């Protein structure tokens, strides 16, 4: 191949090959217009700069995307409700937590629950610490007493419940160990859900003043949904009515028997009769006799009526 030297520079020459290429070649003391047959072509060591910049972009974009995914993932881990813990002492509150046990929201389920949360701003977002704080408040506000009961209902998927069941229980027990002794029940899952939970709290308000825990047998708990109040009201009334009346009646009869003869008064009458007989036997004092007359007549009348019946 022949090359026509077109331009000469210090370091290189531009040649035109006979197939129509312009080339930069090593300038071996060439002169313009010279035709040469052998050249040393210039080789650029660089790669395509456009390609390089594109390559430089890809990892940058990829890393940014990865960061975004991580940030979003973190956000969802920390800010999306994953589980709910219903804590019922009597005040019942619902604590929504994220996957990482970060408390997102606390809501009062019943009126006392709302009262318990009034003015409460959690210092920490940790579930354990929030529960401690709420229990402290409950003690302070007089909702939780010695021998009281805390029911935790865990509303989440099975895995979360199993992993937290004992942990929450242990934590609360340890926390309340040296303060107050309470019973902690953990109810897993939604089987009870909100409706029975409310009944528990209603029931507890009623029970606590009378007889803590004891009365609330299973039967009452079951029937509570159907006829809670009426059932409950009936039993004490009837009890009081029966016992009280009988007592008072007896007392009345004791005092008023002298005038009113009754079949049940026979004992008293007898005693009076016996006393009168003794008086008669003594045979002294009309007054005594008169006094005993009234008492005396009664048995007679009784006897008469008896005899008449006999007849």
């Amino acid at each position, binding site marked *: 191949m022949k090359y026509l030297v077109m331009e000469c*520079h210090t370091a290189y020459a531009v040649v*035109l090959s*006979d*197939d*129509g290429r312009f080339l930069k070649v*090593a300038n*071996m*003391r060439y*002169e313009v217009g010279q035709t040469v047959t052998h050249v040393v072509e210039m080789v650029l*060591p660089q790669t395509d700069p456009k390609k390089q910049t594109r390559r430089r972009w890809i990892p940058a974009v990829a890393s940014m995307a990865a960061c975004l995914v991580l940030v979003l993932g973190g956000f969802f881990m920390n800010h999306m409700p994953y589980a709910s813990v219903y804590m019922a002492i009597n005040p019942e509150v619902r604590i929504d937590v994220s996957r990482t046990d970060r408390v997102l929201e606390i809501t009062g389920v019943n009126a006392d629950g709302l009262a318990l949360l009034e003015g409460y701003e959690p210092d920490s977002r940790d579930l354990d610490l929030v529960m401690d704080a709420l229990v402290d408040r409950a003690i302070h506000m007089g909702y939780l007493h010695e021998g009281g009961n805390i029911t935790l209902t865990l509303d989440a998927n099975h895995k979360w419940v199993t992993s937290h069941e004992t942990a929450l229980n242990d934590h609360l027990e340890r926390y309340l160990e040296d303060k107050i002794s309470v019973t902690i029940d953990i109810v897993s899952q939604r089987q009870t859900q909100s409706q029975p939970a409310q009944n528990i709290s209603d029931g507890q308000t009623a029970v606590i003043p009378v007889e803590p825990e004891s009365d609330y047998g299973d039967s009452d708990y079951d029937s509570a949904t159907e006829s809670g109040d009426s059932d409950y009201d009936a039993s004490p009334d009837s009890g009081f009515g029966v016992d009280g009346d009988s007592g008072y009646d007896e007392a009345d009869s004791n005092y008023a028997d002298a005038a009113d003869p009754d079949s049940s008064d026979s004992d008293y009458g007898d005693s009076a009769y016996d006393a009168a007989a003794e008086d008669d036997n003594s045979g002294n004092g009309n007054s005594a006799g008169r006094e005993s007359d009234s008492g005396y007549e009664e048995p007679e009348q009784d006897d008469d009526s008896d005899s008449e019946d006999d007849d």
Partner: protein
Amino acid sequence: MKSEHQIIKAVYEAKEDPRKADDLIQAYIPFIRSETSKYLSRLSTEQDDEYSIAMIAFYEAIMGYEKGRGAFLGYAALLIRSRLIDYGRKEARHQGHISLEEEMGGEDGRTLMDTLADEHDYYGEFAHREATRQEIQELAAVMESFGVSFSDVADNCPKQERTLSACAKVIRCGVENRELLHELLRTRKLPLSQLAALSGVERKTLERHRKYILAMLLIQTNGYECIRGHLYAVLKKGGRVS
């Protein structure tokens, strides 16, 4: 450190401007010569091919240098050495051949070349070369008026065989339609759309190699017989195709 920054600045300027590249190379000739001497293990002269190779390697270093590649002079030295080694290997196949310049061993210092019968028409060749040189100078002047130098054309020259043949097709179209060439000279604008329509080559390809096509079309205008004679093969190929 400061001088290093100055070099880098000069190198980046030289990438854009061939004249500044020449100046930079001129300023670093001692460095280039020293690198060549290190490779040759003797003092190098301007007559050595290795010196020319080292020069173009330095120019390659200028064009290929990027800030991320470390210090410029270290990079240039490395590139010069690599190119010299490459050249040495290429030349190694001539080992065992006798140079024409070699002395015969006689007392008068005659070389082998002198003993050979010389059939060259030196005068004719000189005249042709002189004519060609003038043509090239004229062409360079015309191209200058278009704002294009031969260095630019060399940078813009198609490298792929397929692109080269596509461009050759366009040039042949220009030759066949002389009015396009006149229009080019008159308006000083490359009639790209017409060329694309006539040749059936994509306009994008023409855009990409516009400087090369401009130079080649200018060569096809009147007055560049010597250069056109050199490019005879390109045009002939076209004749065969059409």
